[in-house]
């Protein structure tokens, strides 16, 4: 389909200016809706990206205000500004907000806006999923903050260790909001991860091979893989926490044989990759900004790309270094201390890549570049203090002190947020069509840089001096008052810098200098279209013959060729990654079942309360439904619509029989007073089979919708791909049941 050139792209510049649409689309356009409705109903990746950025800005301001409250409370010893209980809520909300509602979605928002532009695509692979992901994330964020209104915000810290987060110690419902909100955010985040993978694999313009991808896109790709493999671990642990809290089970409490340490394993199995989820895209931003403002290509492109993969892989297996103080035993500590030290290697060499890129370059010290250099400086400090935790004795000494607080702020604020600021000053002209004011930008930079180091450097020393984190006040030990006061003053300086940033954004939107398509003379594809880009992004995508397409346009002699990109079916690809992510979720629940199998001391067990023969019948139904599904697809491929409908109906019927069978089993168990609260077997059994049943139900609803459509009309290509997606999901659900059935009912492993 060729899009007719639309001559006058005279869109009023500005963040909220709705870009004019090409005439072709004009003809089919539905009646004009209000601008507000268009923002709410949009599936355009640029608008969703901006929605992400706006939402995170709001959450950032809330989290920042909470930080200011914390620092006022800690400004001098014995302060009574906040009550201890309120202090707990505030620091928990600060941590949770900044991690889940600011840093991750901020990076996702940037990725959402920039990725399709940087690879010459017109939108994300699955635009509706994109909108769904954003709104789920926002819903989660609102739900989390609703806990304030509902009476009690969560107060067990951002990692909510059990048993503190159990009902015995957290009697109010703040923790329920926390878990539910994070589930929503987790689902949205996985959706965006899958979407980004599909986009990067399938929507690249011709010639943009993997080895030519902009490094930001590279990092977003690795990041998305981390998301889809790590977030399910969080979701599984949240589900178990909720079953504990709402159905009185004992996954994570000692009573009844549960294990609080398992929560720590599960949480950090997510939590450590999360650290890299929060920093990899920041590496990507730096890898874009530093070369452009040094007027040199990145030094060691392949190393930067490959080391990201190494970091991603290693990060999945080092979580236990968060748990050295638990007392796991020396074997654990040696293994995880050593593997954690290894991660520092690819990360450290990256820093040299960036420095080598600047070396001998014609450096332009724009605000963006200033932030990039500040990132290098601050992140290196944060990285080095991070390495110290891999040494077990040092970890024992400084864990849960302000040394940890200083470290993670150096990584997340001085690292990621500085990089995002570099990205904001770099890409704002692309998003709005106007430049941010450099003067105000510099003021913002210096205030933030100085304020940051004032606030957090001193915390290293406080921590080494023994000040524990998460205490609402402290005695007047020598030096502590002055150090804490300095830290508080620093936070206020950061606050002022944020006000300068907001002022800069607002005034630039109104009266900033128009930027034109490529204000920085940069090389990647996003600069080849107007600023802001039209709704379909590109009039024509320039040919890609190297890593710097716009440079190659001007220097034709240096360019390679533009080979077409290999593409696979987006539906199959996305479903494959979705299923992989779901498999991780079930793997964690199954692991919990196996882990607790030996711990069930009394009460019902799989042996004396389940009926394998009866369940086998329903199992056969479910497995047969996979067969009928396959037959249905075959019939449709051969255009035999009648028998297609029959097989599809058979699939629905068999699936429904399975669900009814499971329902009957549940009814029998509950009638015998076997409920999740009874013992760990019952809790794990209901959680595992219940979530499987929920998946069957979702599949069944989708199949029924498809069946309804099939009865009304012939399938077009659109419904066809929908059927393919549901079928992959359905086979997956069956495969999971085979594992569950053989583990729980047949006990093949015991």
């Amino acid at each position, binding site marked *: 389909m060729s899009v007719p050139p639309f001559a006058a792209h005279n869109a009023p510049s500005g963040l909220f200016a709705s870009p004019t649409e090409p005439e072709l689309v004009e003809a089919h356009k539905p009646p004009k809706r209000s601008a507000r409705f268009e923002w709410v109903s949009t599936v355009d990746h640029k608008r969703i990206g901006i929605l992400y950025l706006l939402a995170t800005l709001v959450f950032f301001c809330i989290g920042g205000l909470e930080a200011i409250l914390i620092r006022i409370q800690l400004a001098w010893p014995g302060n009574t500004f906040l009550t201890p209980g309120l202090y707990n809520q505030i620091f928990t909300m600060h941590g949770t907000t900044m991690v889940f509602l600011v840093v991750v979605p901020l990076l996702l928002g940037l990725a959402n806006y920039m990725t399709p532009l940087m690879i010459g695509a017109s939108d994300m692979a699955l635009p509706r999923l994109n909108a769904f992901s954003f709104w789920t994330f926002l819903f989660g964020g609102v739900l989390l903050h609703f806990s304030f209104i509902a009476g009690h915000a969560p107060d067990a810290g951002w990692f909510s260790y059990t048993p503190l987060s159990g009902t015995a110690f957290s009697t109010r419902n703040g923790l329920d909001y926390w878990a539910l909100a994070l589930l929503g955010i987790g689902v949205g985040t996985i959706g965006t991860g899958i979407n980004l993978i599909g986009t990067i694999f399938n929507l690249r313009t011709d010639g943009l091979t993997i*080895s030519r991808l902009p490094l930001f896109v590279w990092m977003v790709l690795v990041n998305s893989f981390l998301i889809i493999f790590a977030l399910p671990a969080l979701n599984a642990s949240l589900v178990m926490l909720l079953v504990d809290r709402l159905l009185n089970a004992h996954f994570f409490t000692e009573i009844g044989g549960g294990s609080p340490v398992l929560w720590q394993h599960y949480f950090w199995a997510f939590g450590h990759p999360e650290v890299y989820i929060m920093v990899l895209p920041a590496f990507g931003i730096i890898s874009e900004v530093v070369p452009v403002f040094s007027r040199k290509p990145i030094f060691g492109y392949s190393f930067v790309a490959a080391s990201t993969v190494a970091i991603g892989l290693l990060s999945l297996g080092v979580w236990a270094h968060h748990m050295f103080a638990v007392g796991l035993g020396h074997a654990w500590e040696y*293994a995880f201390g050593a*593997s954690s030290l*290894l991660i520092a290697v690819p990360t450290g060499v990256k820093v040299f890549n960036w420095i080598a890129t600047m070396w001998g370059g014609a450096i332009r010290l724009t605000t963006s570049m200033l932030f990039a250099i500040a990132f290098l400086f601050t992140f290196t400090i944060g990285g080095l203090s991070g390495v110290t935790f891999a040494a077990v004795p040092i970890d024992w000494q400084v864990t849960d002190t302000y040394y940890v607080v200083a470290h993670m702020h150096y990584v997340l604020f001085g690292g990621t947020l500085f990089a995002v600021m570099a990205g904001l000053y770099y890409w704002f002209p692309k998003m709005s069509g106007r430049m941010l004011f450099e003067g105000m930008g510099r003021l913002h930079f210096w205030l933030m840089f100085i304020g940051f180091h004032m606030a957090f450097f001193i915390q290293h020393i406080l921590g080494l001096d023994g000040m524990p984190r998460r205490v609402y006040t402290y005695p007047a030990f020598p030096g502590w008052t002055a150090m804490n006061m300095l830290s508080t003053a620093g936070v206020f300086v950061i606050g002022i810098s944020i006000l300068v940033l907001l002022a800069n954004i607002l005034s630039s939107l109104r009266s900033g200098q128009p930027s034109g398509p490529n204000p920085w003379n940069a090389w990647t594809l996003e600069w080849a279209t107007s600023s802001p880009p039209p709704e379909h992004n590109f009039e024509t995508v320039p040919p890609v013959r190297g890593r710097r397409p716009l440079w190659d346009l001007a220097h034709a002699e240096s360019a*390679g060729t533009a080979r077409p990109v290999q593409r696979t079916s987006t539906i199959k690809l996305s479903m494959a990654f979705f299923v992989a992510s779901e498999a991780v979720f079930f793997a964690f629940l199954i692991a919990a079942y196996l*882990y607790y199998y*030996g711990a069930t001391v009394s009460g019902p067990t799989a042996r004396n309360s389940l009926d394998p023969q009866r369940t086998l019948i329903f199992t056969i139904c479910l497995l047969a439904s996979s067969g009928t599904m396959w037959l249905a697809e075959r019939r449709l491929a051969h255009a035999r619509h009648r028998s297609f409908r029959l097989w599809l109906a058979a699939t629905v019927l068999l699936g429904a029989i399975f669900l009814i069978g499971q329902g009957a089993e549940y009814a029998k168990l509950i009638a015998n007073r076997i409920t999740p609260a009874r013992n760990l077997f019952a809790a794990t059994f209901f959680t595992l089979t219940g979530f499987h049943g929920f998946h069957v139900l979702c599949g069944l609803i989708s199949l029924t919708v498809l069946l309804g459509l099939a009865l009304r009309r012939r399938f077009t290509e659109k419904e066809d791909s929908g059927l393919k997606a549901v079928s992959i999901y359905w086979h997956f659900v069956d495969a999971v049941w085979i594992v569950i059935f053989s583990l729980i009912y047949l006990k093949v492993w015991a």
Partner: protein
Amino acid sequence: MSAHDFLMSAWDWKPSVVLGCGLVMAGYAWSTRFRFSARAAAFAAGVLAILLTLVSPMDELADHYLFSVHMAKHILFVLIAPALLLMGLPAAPMEQAMRIRNVARAERVLRQPAVAWTAGVGAMIAWHIPALFNKALANEPLHIAEHLSLLACGTIFWWPILSPLPQSRMRPLPHAAAYLFTACLACTSLGIAITFARSLLYPAYAHPADVYAILPLIRENWGISPQMDQQIGGLLMWAPACLVYVTAIMAMFARWYAEEAERKEARLEAFE
């Protein structure tokens, strides 16, 4: 007995092992005309790894005292030695071997990723099922079969990655990387299962027959209880084994990158 005495005395130069390794090495040297290269070094390292695992005190420790050392032995057999041997294989004799129809046919089957993956991962998992592992400890022929099958399955596993014949190798990205990543996940799961197991899975190591009188040394001086021993074994399967896979994945990136550069060069030449 002190650690030093044990390390000096517990060498068992089994003639079959020494002779076998010697013959393999001699055959290799003869077929490569005694030329020294990085390849030859890799091959020699592979043979040396097997030799040392079987004759050094490690073998005694593994078979009688420590599960963790036994695990290290298995990792050497299934992951490290076959990889080194394959890295050392020269292409020419292999190409000759492929001219034999049945060899070529078998190779075509075995190099299928699903087959090779199942062989490698399956052997690793199967031999650690407590029933089988315990039986192999008590039964010497079965034990030898265990080690040989680990070596063989390890070789089959690495063949699509490290074969000297380009047509046998998988595309480095994404195929080989996914192959290695999923294998890593499988081994990690096994490692996690062993590390977290509440009971002692391999009872022979709980009360070893103390032939060398080093049990007090192990339990008290080294401080390794049977539980800790099992944990170390699980962790070895988990972390270091994973690092082997991660290293291989990174090597796949390097290979893919080199191929990409080669293609670019070929295009430029065609252009001129």
